[in-house]
């Protein structure tokens, strides 16, 4: 998890980057290993296909390698890497949209209030439920269906588990925007998922006295 990096990791990363720039390029394999998943997931939050997300991830890691000399030690390597991934993914979407002459997905905030699905009770769905493909697919599709500006914040905060400040720095938006967008994403997901997950969860035993 990116947010769990200790200062020792950061110091080691700085040393690794220095060594790579000095010619020990093989160390780059080690440097990026902790971020393989994060970069892929970030790419996947922009494109629907796994193949394309993988392609974006590879491209981002190569671009990061080529521009490693421009990395400034005061920034976090993870944040820098994710920003490169974002640019790569957004650039592709723009190229695709212009080829098909389609408008880009709306990237502005929406002030309309979002309301959750109303429930009277909630029985916890345990992680074991994720053994079922059906449940995993429901969750993934719901995240994919979020508008892009909410999806990117949700993926960084709740899937990658970056903190609010790291998320703001990565996306180059304010902390307040992170909070608002995250709130909207979470409520949208609750609205979308709570009813279907409730239905997909194992049947509760009927109480005989009803």
């Amino acid at each position, binding site marked *: 998890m990116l947010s769990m990096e200790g200062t020792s990791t950061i110091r080691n990363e700085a040393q690794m980057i220095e060594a790579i720039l000095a010619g020990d390029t093989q160390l780059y394999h080690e440097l990026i290993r902790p971020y393989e998943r994060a970069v892929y997931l970030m790419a*996947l939050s922009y494109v629907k296909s796994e193949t394309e997300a993988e392609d974006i*991830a590879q491209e981002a890691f190569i671009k990061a390698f080529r521009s490693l000399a421009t990395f400034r030690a005061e920034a976090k390597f993870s944040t820098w890497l994710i920003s490169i991934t974002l640019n790569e993914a957004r650039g592709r979407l723009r190229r695709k949209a212009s080829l098909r002459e389609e408008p880009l997905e709306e990237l502005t905030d929406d002030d309309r209030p979002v309301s959750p699905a109303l429930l009277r009770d*909630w029985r916890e769905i345990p992680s074991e439920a994720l053994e079922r493909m059906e449940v995993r697919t429901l969750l993934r599709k719901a995240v994919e269906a979020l508008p892009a500006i909410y999806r990117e914040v949700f993926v960084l905060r709740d899937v990658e588990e970056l903190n*609010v400040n790291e998320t703001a720095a990565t996306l180059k938006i304010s902390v307040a925007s992170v909070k608002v967008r995250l709130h909207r994403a979470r409520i949208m997901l*609750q609205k979308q998922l709570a009813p279907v*997950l409730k239905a997909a969860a194992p049947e509760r035993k009927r109480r005989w006295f009803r």
Partner: protein
Amino acid sequence: MIIDCKHVWNYLSEYIDGSLSEETREAVQLHLDHCEICSAILDATRNIIILTADDRVFELPVGYSERLHARLEKELNDKLS
């Protein structure tokens, strides 16, 4: 401070993250203690966040890491030559 359900919904995300001011957190807490609908909404939201964070939801494609490092290897060698 007494707040109604719709106001509580606006605070749910920050309530989960523990980033509300003391006063607001107490008001939300007071409401949650008495409102079964808002507590159910909170429980469901929290539950969904935990489930989506699970590594099994977004899986890496089989062979992703191998293909990535193979491609990088080519790049790293090109750099040397």
